[in-house]
């Protein structure tokens, strides 16, 4: 058995990969549900209903998709340059911290000034947080996967430390949470009375911006070249280390915006459970989208649908909602394998 490169890959084949990933994840989930003693049909029906069956469900899915678009973009941008940013969680919290530090009254500014300022500050915090491991990689050859992962753990503890101390909400009855952000720092809702907020629009805009950067700018070209073959890029005169640094700034900043979005748009304050793994889910989103920025939006909505639907299903049918995590992980692995077959075909001998 041999793998032989294909001469061309049609769009049909490229779309088949994520579809195969989704299909396999459904099959695996069905098996697990059967083992659990429930009916796969009942489960899937409940998931779909919980994700999009009502207007409320649909809006909830889009709300859950918002941070996933940001972390998905962060992972897609980084992975394209072969920068393995697994630190989305930490960068998200960095953005959230800055949002709370600046937005709970320290800066009594009107919304049109305060909102962009907080977003920019959050972006910068996440950007700088990823810069550290990236420099360690380019200068010292330290694997960024491990360093970004370890920083995730450090950051969660740091947030806990802040919530016990300087950021503690004096009116919080002892729960570890921060003060609420002031009205001028809140991102307005898109639909009155529902939870969907302007963060969703910003996320879509961010996806378009990333698409534009990739397709039209010199920076996008540099990231592509460096990601495919850093040695040849260096030979051509592309400043590889500088490109990596810029990539890190963009990626970290995008993930941080997820944190700003969750605080300023949805929760209103910082808590320890702000992110139920959005950073890691972002990686799956990016891979399902084959690192394409516009695909990230679709993949994020799909993954959000899985989680929202599974939560609802778990309440009604009783199958553990971890089934969604299993599906997402299965989809990731299948997608990676499927992408291979879009580039190669299997041959005898």
């Amino acid at each position, binding site marked *: 058995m041999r793998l032989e490169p294909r001469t061309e890959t049609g769009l049909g084949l490229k779309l088949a990969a994520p579809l195969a990933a989704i299909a396999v994840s459904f099959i695996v989930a069905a098996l697990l549900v059967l083992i659990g003693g429930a009916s796969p049909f009942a489960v899937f029906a409940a998931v779909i209903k919980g994700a999009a069956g009502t207007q409320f469900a649909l809006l909830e899915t889009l709300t859950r998709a918002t941070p996933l678009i940001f972390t998905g973009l962060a992972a897609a941008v980084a992975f394209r340059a072969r920068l393995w940013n697994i630190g989305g969680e930490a960068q998200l919290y960095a953005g959230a911290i800055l949002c709370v530090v600046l937005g709970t009254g320290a800066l009594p500014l009107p919304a049109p000034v305060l909102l962009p300022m907080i977003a920019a500050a959050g972006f910068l915090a996440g950007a700088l947080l990823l810069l550290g491991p990236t420099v*360690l990689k380019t200068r010292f050859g330290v694997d960024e996967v491990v360093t970004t992962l370890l920083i995730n753990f450090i950051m969660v503890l740091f947030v806990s430390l802040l919530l016990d101390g300087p950021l503690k909400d004096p009116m919080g009855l002892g729960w570890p949470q921060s003060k609420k952000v002031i009205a001028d720092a809140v991102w307005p809702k898109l639909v009155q009375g529902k939870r969907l907020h302007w963060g969703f629009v910003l996320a879509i805009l961010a996806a378009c911006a990333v698409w534009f950067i990739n397709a039209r700018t010199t920076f996008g070209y540099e990231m592509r070249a460096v990601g495919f073959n850093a040695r040849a890029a260096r030979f051509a005169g592309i400043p590889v280390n500088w490109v990596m640094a810029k990539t890190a700034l963009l990626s970290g900043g995008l993930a941080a915006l997820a944190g700003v979005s969750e605080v300023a748009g949805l929760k209103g304050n910082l808590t320890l459970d702000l992110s139920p793994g959005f950073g890691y889910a972002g990686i799956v989103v990016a891979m399902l989208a084959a690192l394409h920025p516009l695909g990230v939006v679709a993949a994020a909505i799909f993954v959000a649908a899985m989680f929202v639907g599974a939560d609802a299903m778990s309440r009604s049918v009783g199958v553990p909602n971890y089934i969604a*995590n299993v599906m997402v*992980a299965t989809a990731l692995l299948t997608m990676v394998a499927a992408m291979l077959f879009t580039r190669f075909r299997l041959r005898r001998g």
Partner: protein
Amino acid sequence: MEAIEILFTASLWAAAIRIASPLILATLGELICERAGVLNLGIEGIMTVGAFAGWVAVYHGADLWTGLAIAALAGAAFGLLHGFMTVPLGLSQHVTGIGITLLATSLTYYAYRLAFPEVTSPPKIEPFAPFEIPGLSQIPFFGEALFRQTPLTYLAFLAVALVAYVLYRTPIGLAVRTVGENPAAVEAQGIDVTWLRMGAVAVGSAFMALGGAFLTMSAFNSFYFDMVNGRGWICIALVVFGSWRPGKALLGAILFAAFDAYQLRLQQLAGAYVPYQVFLMLPYILSILALIAMSRRAGYPRALMIAYRKGER
């Protein structure tokens, strides 16, 4: 000063050895994988699977050693999946590993919730009891530190010697070391690279699962969420820190665990002045520093993370 005195107590070192045991086993596992040229980022998930599988087997009536065997098999199964994707298919070792961790962890949590849907406090088993080695355990200081541990700790130490022996003194160990340096050399001598690498990853993953099982079957007596808590990533740093050699990895793990045990005791002294989170952060920070210190990477397997496509010359 009391802070310095603690360093010389046998109880500190006994705790260090105990804390080191899961790290030793899991680090050995990762070391075997990487020596064969495969980075296994599934370690965190495989440790979780090992912790759950062994424990749940014992909960359902198996004896402890059978539980360990089941944990090892579960680890090996995930290892084979990782090996299949990264060796014959040659997929990105980074992404596959992260995917394995996500899959293994989520499957474990799903299974746990399915098996114990309504518990608020996790059910307990009877773990390995400390076994005092007659004679040796009476030696002052070393007796308490080294020889009053559970059998699983003794197993971990034996494993270091076994892995070192196999790697350096047996034909199969030579093959494993070579396939991580230059797979073409192995193929040219008539050994199948795919089976060798996949086998190494499976065996390494079994060791990782045993490391996880230590947590539920020796250190504590029940399984709870986020139990592994980043130990897998720390072990990746320990492999680098130990220059991919079993003996040095052992020393690294003990050093690390000693530091962890020390900060636990420091917390009791200084807890009023320094938030406890700072102490908890220290192991992760130390791991990053260890990686930077060893960054010149003397001795890393040359073919690590490079996929081998048969016939591509």
